[in-house]
């Protein structure tokens, strides 16, 4: 059940990656609807991944996914920001506050 959901989520993510900037130049409204559903898809994928793959993977997918969906294309700042946010959140919530972040098969 959850595996099906993950596959669906992954498909959504791939769709989000391939569909946007080149193709849908029709009009501003449908364009922002597409972005809205892409944001939604990335967050859904994040929640599904959280229970399976754990916090680190899910959070990297969330941040990276949103950077791309929101139209950023410079890879180095993106990587630095995604990893930085993940490490920062881990340090604040897990190390400093002792909140058990979800751990999956990976970290």
């Amino acid at each position, binding site marked *: 059940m959850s595996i099906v959901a993950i596959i669906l989520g992954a498909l959504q993510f791939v769709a989000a990656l391939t569909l*946007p*900037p080149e193709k849908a130049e029709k009009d*501003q409204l449908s*364009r*922002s*609807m597409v*972005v*809205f559903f*892409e*944001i*939604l898809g990335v*967050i*859904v994928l*994040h*929640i599904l991944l*959280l*229970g399976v793959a754990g*916090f680190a993977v899910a*959070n990297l997918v*969330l*941040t*990276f*996914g*949103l*950077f791309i*969906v*929101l*139209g*950023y294309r410079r890879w180095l*700042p*993106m990587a630095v*920001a*995604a990893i930085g*946010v*993940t490490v920062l*959140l881990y340090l*604040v*919530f897990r190390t400093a*506050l*002792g*909140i*058990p*972040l*979800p751990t999956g098969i990976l970290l």
Partner: protein
Amino acid sequence: MGSLLSNIALGFQVILQPHVFLMLAGGVLLGLVVGVIPGLNDTITISILIPITFAMEPIVGLAMLVGIYCAACYGGSFASILVGIPGTASSVVTTQDGYPMARKGLAGQALSISTASSVFGGVFSTLVLMFAAPWLAEQALRFGPAEYFALAVFGLSTIAGMGGDSVLRSLISGVLGLLIATIGMSPQVGYPRFYFGNPNLLDGIPFIPALIGLFGITSVMGMSNTGPSTAAGTGRVGQIGSFRLERALIRRLLPIWVICAALGTFIGIVPGAGMIMAVYLAYEIARRRSPGLEFGTGVPEGVAAPEAANNSVVGGSMVPLLSLGVPGNSTSALFLGALMIHGLRPGPMLFMEQPQIAYGILAAFFIGNILMGGMGLLVARFMSGLLLAIPQPLLGGAVAAFCAVGAYSMGNNIFNIWIMLIFGVLGFVMNKLRLPVSPMILAMVLGTMAETSLQQALVISRGSYSIFYTRPIALVLLVVSAWFFLMPIAKIFMQRMRSKKLQSVPK
């Protein structure tokens, strides 16, 4: 009186010892930081730190906790103003005018107003706490379920005027909030309602995750409007502007500060009335005081009112705790715990047997509130510079990550992130339909309070509704609510009559 003053002097002496003072300042800094981050707040931080304070000298640990408690709800306003996402529940209302101010290029001024208002509210309530606590605490005990019900109705009555131009839109949103408040087990009987077979919903919709969704996720989703290609442009803070506060502005805001600080202190003293209600009421009162101003478009009063109110709730909530040993909200309940760990029992005896602790706490509130202003301005300058340097897509991604972890950490439950997402979508849709979100939030909080106290009151009166009009405080509150509720509606009615007359006259 003489002994009171000498006791207060003793309190200041205790706090101004270097090691105590440093811990207080550390607490203030920590409070500012957790305040800024959505999903982290004073309650979580204090509950985590209480075990650590056990190892410290009592007053040192308590000073740190006081610093956190003071500064967190002020730090929440930074995020409200700079990105339009409240850092803590206490600064939800600050977004309504703070963020528009920032978008007009007045972020610096908004931050300074928030600082001045918070310090004013904090110091005001501390002074009340110092000089009138025992008497006030006695009055607060007169609040029974009937009075709480009337107070909740009073809070709900302000919804009618909340949407500004459209009463109907506010009421739609408010009723939606009341419906959401019915989810979960009913008070008194414990009958499960609308929980869709999901045990996570038995306690009702978790409030903080919903709030994070309504503001944080909604604003990330709102970024879809600008479209990726124009990401650099519209809808974000362009410049910070000057932090200076003109004397004329201070004079203009002073009455608001006094009224809202008094209101906040009062609501803080009444156990269980709560922060959300205080900030909404303060905003509403400020709005009605200056009918000429377009609230919601970035007016200074709209930042000053909630910020003065929320910091005065903090001081007010310590009144019943210190003078009676009755905690008024979850954070002061934690303070009770922190005192008990050290074998201290709050209440009248604390002031007699351990004046250095009791008055030390009062002095810590006073100094903490002042420290908060200076340190806050530094943090605010730093933060606003940082936020300007980050491109919008990166900011959106980081905000979403913070929101998700914040929602999760309320009870360490992935279900809370779903709630966050659902409310994020709801907020996005409501924005599209131009429905105001605030009536819904207020109704979500007050719906539960009204229902619980209504049923308790009716149990006390054995089912007779006379309890609501024979008790003077309840009656006054209900009459005032009727006035608050009907005024905006009557105003629209009058305007229509007048415009009809105008139309008919020239022909």
